[in-house]
């Protein structure tokens, strides 16, 4: 009788173990494949490579700083603001986007996240009946060497049309200037990169020959200059970054497909040379030059198709760059946020 009771208990336990075990398998599988937005606590992150300077990254709404052997959270998200798209100014301060549900604003902070200062006010005051369209988006900030702030901003708007245009404003002057006139209903002009000459290169979305939307790198020398294309619609290039010295440009090109590769190309201030592909076969995003121009960092999924993480390409500007090397693991980086690399 005693043995029978034990056996029955064991059988029941086995059934429960099968049920729990299947759940455990799923849990482990979930951990291995990493869900959307999962971010490891920064204090647990240790880079696989030690890179010079500081690299600011966005993950799960937080702004992280990779420096030496460790990662720290510089700005943490809260219920209403998620931090993204950092940019480093010449004085070492950081300009960053705070995204809310209906709008986004630009902020400036010290390198460690202190002294947070709001630069734009894009949230509309609540109105009777609501008026969502009075809100605005500000994205892709860049700080020019002259202190000028560049960004993409969704004004002017009209009805259903909401397109981003390239804007700039002097640091000491709150009056902003619209530089570009986006092609309507394409999403507009984004990711401005100020040039030493005073002009700007940005990604412009246009309608291609087959009625598809493609991006082109576009050069403008002044606010009223219509500008001209640096790349073709077939190339479908975007996310430009100019190497220190201004002679080489890094970008992402997709050829209209679902692959995105990192290319570098010489730039004489007016035209581009012949591009070289440095990373392909993955979904690459936002190549970003090291402060000394010796290497590129960019975002791409971890091996096996995991979350986006940070990769490094040594000698990117030279004739024989090294192969890509993974810098971080165990973190889900926001692939819509360019890394910002400070000395």
């Amino acid at each position, binding site marked *: 009788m005693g043995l029978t009771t034990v056996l029955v208990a064991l*059988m029941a336990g086995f059934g429960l173990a099968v049920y729990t075990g299947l759940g455990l398998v799923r849990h482990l599988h979930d951990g291995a494949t990493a869900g959307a937005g999962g971010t490891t606590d920064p204090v647990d992150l240790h880079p696989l490579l030690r890179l010079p300077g500081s690299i600011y990254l966005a993950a799960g709404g937080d702004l992280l700083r990779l420096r030496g052997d460790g990662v720290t959270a510089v700005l943490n998200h809260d219920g209403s603001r998620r931090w993204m798209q950092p940019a480093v100014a010449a004085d070492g301060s950081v300009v960053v986007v705070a995204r809310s*549900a209906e709008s986004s604003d630009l902020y400036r902070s010290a390198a460690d996240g202190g002294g947070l200062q709001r630069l734009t006010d894009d949230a509309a005051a609540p109105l009777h009946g609501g008026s969502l369209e009075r809100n605005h988006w500000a994205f892709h900030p860049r700080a020019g060497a002259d202190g000028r702030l560049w960004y993409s901003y969704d004004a002017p708007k009209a009805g259903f049309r*909401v397109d981003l245009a390239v804007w700039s404003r002097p640091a000491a002057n709150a009056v902003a200037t619209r530089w570009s006139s986006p092609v309507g209903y394409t*999403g507009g002009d984004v990711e401005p990169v100020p040039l030493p000459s005073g002009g700007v290169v940005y990604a412009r979305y246009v309608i291609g020959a087959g009625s598809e939307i493609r991006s082109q790198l576009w050069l403008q020398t002044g606010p009223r200059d219509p500008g001209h294309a640096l790349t073709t619609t077939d190339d479908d290039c975007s996310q430009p970054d100019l190497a220190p010295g201004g002679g080489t440009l890094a970008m*992402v090109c997709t050829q209209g497909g679902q692959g*995105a590769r990192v290319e570098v190309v010489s730039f004489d201030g007016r035209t581009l040379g012949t591009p070289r592909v440095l990373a392909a076969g993955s979904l690459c995003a936002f190549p970003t030059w090291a402060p000394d121009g010796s290497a590129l960092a960019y975002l791409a999924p971890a091996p096996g198709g995991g979350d986006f993480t940070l990769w490094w390409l040594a000698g990117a500007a030279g004739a024989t760059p090294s192969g890509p090397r993974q810098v971080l693991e165990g973190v889900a980086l926001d692939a819509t946020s360019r890394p910002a690399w400070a000395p």
Partner: protein
Amino acid sequence: MATNQRRRRRSGTGWPVTEGVATRRRRRRVLVAVLVIVGFTASGLAGAVAYFLPVLATSLGATGQSVVGSLGNRSPSDHDPFTVLLLGSDDDAKFVPGHLLTQSMILVRVEPATGHVTMLSIPRDLYVPISTGGSAKIDTAYANGGAATAIATVEQDFKVQIDHYVWIGLRGLVNLIDRLGGVDVVTTNPVLDDFYPADLAGGDPYAFERVAVMPGAQHMSGLVAMEYVRSRHDDLREDFGRSERQQQVLLALRTKAHTVGLADLPDIASALKGEILTDMSLRDVADLMPIASGLSLDKVARVLLLPPYTSDASVDGQAVLQPDWDRIHARVAKSFP
């Protein structure tokens, strides 16, 4: 030695008495062992059944839907080319259950032997003869007769043979993508919309919200993927742009098929409860998974019925797309032989 001799004494039945007892004991032990094995097996099966109960419940409710009409007989397990009609509907509180418009209609032809796939998006505003009578936008076919009418209308107008259909609701797509851990997509452009329906968060189903999906390669949650494929106001190509984005996310989903393990199925089934319907059997679905995960992007042809296949028109004051059937039939005959 004497003891052994005693053990060898035979009983009247011809068997040694002590061996008969031993045999009985042995049989009893075997019986007990069998009972224990059966008990553990039954208990383990019960545990597995309890775990997979949501899958069974959802599968029974969602698959094997009967369709009045003539669906083709080709199934993924036959290794012959087959055609699936994918239907997607807004199914929030604005709509009456059972009378849902289809926001998305995609004809997919799969050739298992070669791995070639053709996706043809049918614009929701396409003005067509409906199989039950009269003409209307094609998105009303599902609302006025369910899958049977939608299938019959597409078969009749496009001159194709549809073998299967799959219908999925808004929340179903969001939940499915989230349960698969999100999807990786290279978005075509910034997708900005000040009048995006705020109907998934509860509250007023007629309210709007602002969305901004960033351009470029990224990892999307279910909600962002839904915003990307559903937004239509700030796209010069209107519904065609949306169709292209839907095809992109659909193809991104295929890469997730190989990450789905058996143990994931209950969660996925729970996420899809009431949000997916198909005529395919469980076996068809199981056969489809390896085909989907093995698809190569360079073997996928994506077709949008842009002008000159269609042209803007107005019928009874409503903006519609007028089909050029000669061109469309020639294109369909080529892609869906």
